[in-house]
């Protein structure tokens, strides 16, 4: 409080200086202009558009960074599989050489076992060491890296592409630590913006329907409208989400050639941020897979906003219901306490009206009711 008084005195002093038109005022002018610009910039960044732009630029920056980190040609990968190949061929040759009179059954058995172990090694290399048939540059294209960054900071985490180098893993952790709070800020803001526009749309539609149904004078309608606050019911939110998921289902089923169930399963697991990763659009290696990745990116961002909107709108209703349940439980506890004799002071609560025949009691009851 004291500081503010001094500050305002200082500004008053500055104003009086400015009115005299001294040379120091021009430098102060530019300083205030700088501060103005800075302030405008910060306040813009804190709006929704600013945060959205920040998120997109963070994703793009991350895509470039991961592309650079993970694109190194890893010769050890091809060496690894050729090692496995050589090993298997050596074993096969041993079997073929040793059996001079080629016992077919024995040979079949041995070769089958060798192939099975070869297969197991391939499975290990693909699953644990993330071997891919393609080279690194083919895997870590720009749209694919963008999807990877999106899957990191939206916490979906598909896992169809993961960092293999040490630096890649450390970079992922740092990227997530900075990106997740940013994304949460975006998410909450988007929820609020969408919730406001949805409420506005809902109210407009509600009023349209009401004016159509009721053919009464305008005066009565506006009074009624202003009286009842229109709360968006949770079912409307659920319908919006179901509709959005259906859109996604049809879109991905048409483009990727998945069945409708698989498409629905993918939309749901992506929007719910589970992100299992067995289905990812744009990884089929088709021609326009890059544009598909970007469309998936937009679909997910908007979908997240819609989920935030539903969360914001439904939170109030759910909180109310939870509070009612909590009150119920507390009431029960109090009642149990009463039964156990914890609350000895009998005048704190009146007797139920059933036992009203005693005159003295009714008087005290009436008194306590009036007191409240």
């Amino acid at each position, binding site marked *: 409080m004291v500081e503010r008084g001094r500050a305002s005195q200082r500004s008053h002093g500055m*104003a009086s200086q400015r009115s005299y038109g001294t040379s120091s005022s021009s430098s102060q002018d530019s300083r205030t202009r700088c501060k103005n610009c800075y302030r405008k910039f910060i306040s813009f960044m804190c709006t929704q558009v600013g945060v959205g732009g920040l998120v997109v630029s963070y994703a793009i920056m991350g895509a470039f960074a991961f592309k650079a980190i993970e694109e190194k040609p890893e010769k050890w990968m091809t060496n690894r599989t050729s090692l496995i190949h050589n090993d298997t061929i050596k074993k096969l040759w041993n079997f073929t050489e040793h059996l001079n009179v080629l016992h077919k059954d024995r040979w079949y058995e041995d*070769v089958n076992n060798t192939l099975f172990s070869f297969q*197991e090694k391939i499975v*290990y290399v693909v699953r644990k060491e993330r071997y891919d048939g393609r080279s690194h540059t083919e895997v870590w294209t720009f749209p694919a890296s963008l999807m990877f960054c999106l899957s990191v900071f939206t916490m979906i985490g598909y896992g169809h592409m993961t960092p293999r180098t040490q630096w890649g893993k450390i970079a992922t952790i740092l990227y997530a630590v900075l990106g997740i709070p940013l994304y949460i800020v975006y998410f909450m803001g988007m929820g609020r913006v969408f919730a406001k526009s949805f409420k506005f749309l809902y109210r407009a539609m509600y009023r349209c329907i009401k004016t159509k149904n009721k053919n009464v004078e305008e005066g009565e309608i506006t009074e009624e409208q202003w009286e009842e606050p229109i709360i968006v019911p949770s079912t409307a939110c659920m319908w919006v989400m179901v509709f959005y998921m259906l859109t996604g289902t049809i879109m991905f089923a048409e483009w990727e050639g998945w069945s409708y169930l698989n498409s629905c399963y993918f939309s749901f697991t992506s929007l719910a941020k589970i*992100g299992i990763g067995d289905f990812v659009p744009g990884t089929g290696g088709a021609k326009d897979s890059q544009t598909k990745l970007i469309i998936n990116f937009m679909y997910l961002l908007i979908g997240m906003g819609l989920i935030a909107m539903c969360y914001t709108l439904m939170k109030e209703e759910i909180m109310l219901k939870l509070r009612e349940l909590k009150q119920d*439980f507390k009431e029960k506890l109090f009642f149990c306490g009463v039964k156990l004799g914890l609350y000895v002071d009998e005048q704190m609560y009146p007797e139920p009206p059933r036992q009203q025949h005693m005159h003295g009691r009714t008087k005290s009851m009436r008194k306590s009711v009036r007191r409240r």
Partner: protein
Amino acid sequence: MQTAYARMVYERQAREQRRGAAEGHRQTSTFKTILKDACRRLIAFLFTQVGVCGLVVAYNILGAFAFRVIEGEMGDPRPEETAKELREQMVHRLWNVTLRLNVLEETQWREEVVVALQEYQEFVVPLIKTKGYRGVYPKETWSFSAALMYSLSVYTTIGYGNLAPRTELGKITTILYAIVGMPLMLLYMSNVGEILANIFKFIYFRACRCDIGSLGYYRTASGTIRPVTVSQNGQSDESSPRRTIPITWCLLVIAIYVGIGGLIFAQWERWSVLDACYFSYISLSTIGFGDLVPGKTVEGENDDQEVESQQIICTVYLLVGSALVAMCFNLMQEETIENLKAFWRNLGCLRKKKTRKISVQDGHERTARYDGDG
């Protein structure tokens, strides 16, 4: 407060009496009321902390059983069958190659076998990546602990993906399981997070052995704890208000937990420490890539029993970790809101200075008082 509860009790008794009078028959009404009472009591209990924890664990186990049956026993063995056919075809082919070359010329034989193996590999790799082929049949893959981890990854939205449902029934079950499980998880996190946050605050303020005031906080009339912006009381002479300590403490708690998980998993799964910490962090932040997941290695280094117990302990670790993350969010929320308010106040202070230049001498005290409160 007691009178308010008393009023509730009175009203409820009146309501029940009215209900009993309306229904008439005393026996059925008491039975119905008992049933309704029991239901209400059960739901109210379930929403307390103990109830929610139990509910989450029960839901997890239920999911484990369900997925074990749906994906394990009624599972889809087509990729394994395909791989077996491929292998048999490959053996035939190699036999034909061996037969054809009458005098066994090694180099030519090797060339053809290399080509054959390369083709075989190119068939198997997409089978592994897209169809989820793992070399073992679904019955063995979907053990109880593996299904437990899968259920956990669905309703905590981690979503590893190392195990994915192949059957249609499995996919539909996953969707329904997630729809019911995610609100439950949110409830669990908010309830348990609140308790843990209160415990942490209690320990913290006790451990400092200091009053809230000397830390740079004061209690407003409504009971909320606010940081001191300007030295209001004479007490806070070390008046640089150490507001940022709680945030760093929260992050430290999470970092320690990730570190503990890293050490444990590095020991068990024979990963490097970086890999294990990476796994812990990616799981706790619910990203959940699934490239590193505790489980059976293909070469069968770990014992079956060992792997099962390790996976169960991993599930418990992740559940406790989610609660800790919720606690940190709870604690950091107040701090960040206060910091943001201070930040806005600073911005606003630049703005207010300009606009109140003119009328400053009359009411500067008034404006000052207004700002100090907000």
